[in-house]
């Protein structure tokens, strides 16, 4: 991808500005602490990956990052604001949940069009046109009139991505967008994330296990400890590969051996 130098310059400068700032965040429920003292930030325009073993609390962390849960300690800022207070207005971010969380009583098209209906004055046919375009983006134009129960697991994931993108948020959280998909579709999701990021400037926070996609898309990553001690490593994928931390090393080598 070639970009004019001046644009590149502006792009680079914008990249420095954090869109998501997390300071001393401790997550868990009541007395149960899942991860403590998480501090990191995500810069505008980057693809940021959250890695960690199954059960380490990645999905839970996303719930705290978007303001669905109240932190035990610490705070989260999205574009300088507490996400919890944004809830009633239009949040500047989209979320794709690990299980999709599509509304079972609506068709896929209605699911994607819902945020448009609720937050804009678009006439229904215009909202539907946008929804169709978003579905085409994830390769699901044929599923517009289907119910979520009629989709395969991977199609649900892609429909959920389309819904998260409905209002063109500047930040999206994607919880395992390509887990459990065949390699071709998974690579397609990676391409989609790259396109969103490079062409539309969408900042992506991606929870993923897939080594291929980490190297393909991530600018930076953090690795969560599986014992709840917080972030064990942070940096770009190449530098993490050199890490001496046993968990990080296992994560990268074990997985790459199998791929």
């Amino acid at each position, binding site marked *: 991808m070639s970009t004019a130098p001046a644009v590149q310059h502006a792009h680079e400068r914008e990249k420095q500005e954090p869109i998501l700032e997390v300071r001393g965040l401790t997550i868990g429920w009541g007395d149960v602490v899942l991860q403590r003292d998480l501090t990191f930030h995500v810069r505008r325009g980057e693809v940021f990956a959250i890695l960690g073993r199954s059960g380490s609390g990645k999905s839970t962390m996303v719930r705290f990052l978007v303001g*669905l849960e109240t932190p035990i300690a610490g705070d989260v800022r999205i574009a300088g604001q507490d996400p919890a207070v944004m809830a*009633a207005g239009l949040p500047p971010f*989209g979320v794709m949940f690990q299980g999709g969380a*599509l509304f079972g009583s609506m068709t896929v098209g209605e699911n994607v069009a819902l945020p448009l209906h609720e937050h804009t004055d678009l006439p229904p046919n215009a909202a539907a046109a946008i929804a169709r375009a978003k579905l085409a983006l994830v390769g699901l134009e044929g599923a517009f009139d289907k119910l979520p129960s009629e989709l395969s697991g991977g199609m649900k994931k892609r429909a959920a991505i389309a819904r998260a993108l409905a209002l063109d948020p500047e930040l999206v959280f994607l919880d395992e967008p390509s887990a459990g998909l065949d390699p071709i579709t998974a690579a397609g999701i990676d391409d989609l994330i790259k396109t969103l990021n490079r062409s539309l400037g969408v900042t992506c926070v991606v929870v993923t296990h897939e080594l291929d996609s980490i190297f393909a898309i991530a600018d930076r990553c953090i690795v969560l400890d599986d014992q709840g001690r917080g972030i064990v490593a942070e940096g770009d994928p190449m530098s993490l590969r050199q890490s001496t931390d046993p968990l990080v090393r296992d994560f990268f080598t074990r997985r790459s051996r199998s791929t």
Partner: protein
Amino acid sequence: MTAATTPSRAAEGEPSGERSFTIARAGSVVRLSGVFRTKDAAAAWRELHDTVENVGESAVTIDLSGAERIDGGVLALIVAARAELVSKGIAAEITSIPEHLKPLVELYGGLSERPRPPARERARGVIATIGEEAVRAAAGLRRAVAFIGDLALGVRELIRRPRLGHWKEVPTLVHRAGTDAIPIVVTISFLVGFVMGYQSARQLERFGANVYVADLVAIAMTRELGPLMTAIIVAGRSGAAFAAEIATMKVSDEIDALRTMGLPPIVWLVVPRLVALVIVMPLLVLVADVVGVIGGLVVAAVSLDVSPSAYLLEIRRTLEPWDVQQGLIKSVPFAITIVLIACQKGFAAAGGAESVGQRTTSTVVTNLFALVVLDALFTLTFRLMGK
């Protein structure tokens, strides 16, 4: 099965029956030999347990050299028995583990220095159980209060920004909770009116007061049974449906998805249901009133020799607008109660499918209770008001 006639089959399950393994202790060595299948696990566990329970030794070796075959389940029990010994301060060790089982024993924790002692069923006293229930009840109450608070905040927000409401859903809900309920409301009300008339017929006949069946049915129906039966039907149909819908949305993260889209779920889901039931309930009550009276009319004509016109004339003479109004007034708080209980239970769901079922059941039970109590309170209040 002909288990009774085949002694060999019956004996198989018996501890005294032929056995493919032996467990014997000599000093500090417990020797396991033979074939240990998972289907014999219970017997193996009992015997192993009895053997190692009161060993007076400071070190025990569980020797597997004689075992020809050990299934995974039995192996886990052997590991557990060893862990129990270790937890009692006895240096226990499993020896001569067949090579192919070693990784499994290690995974089970059978080689570790300090194995996890087997979990013990903790017997809970009555006091503890009562305490736990009380804590749970208090938490439930707190959640209910918090729910009402959230709803109030949501409604305030909604008044400020009416477009936040999911008004589109109201017609569908009216159809589902109202139109679809008409057949059952009609059937039940007719039968209630009919049965009431029939049961009173004998008594009234004795006094030659046949025509008063009209008063009896009309007043009971409009004041009490119409609204109450309708509310019970609506609670069973729509209340349960609302709870199940919302609980399902909750456990599949759909509620959270709504929140991340800036659509407050309480406003979005509860308010349309409230509006729909508040519209539907009085109408259904009117239907129930009319049909119940018709049920009485049929009985009057068939077994009391009261002609339909005499029956209707009598109703016109005695039934006051207030009788009907009373029922209609009550139906609104009934509707609100049904929706609030159903939605609150739905939002309280967490976990999986079993939680959805639990919340739905609990919704119906709580609603029945609340409706009957509420109805009694209304009757009392209206009586005190002198009406």
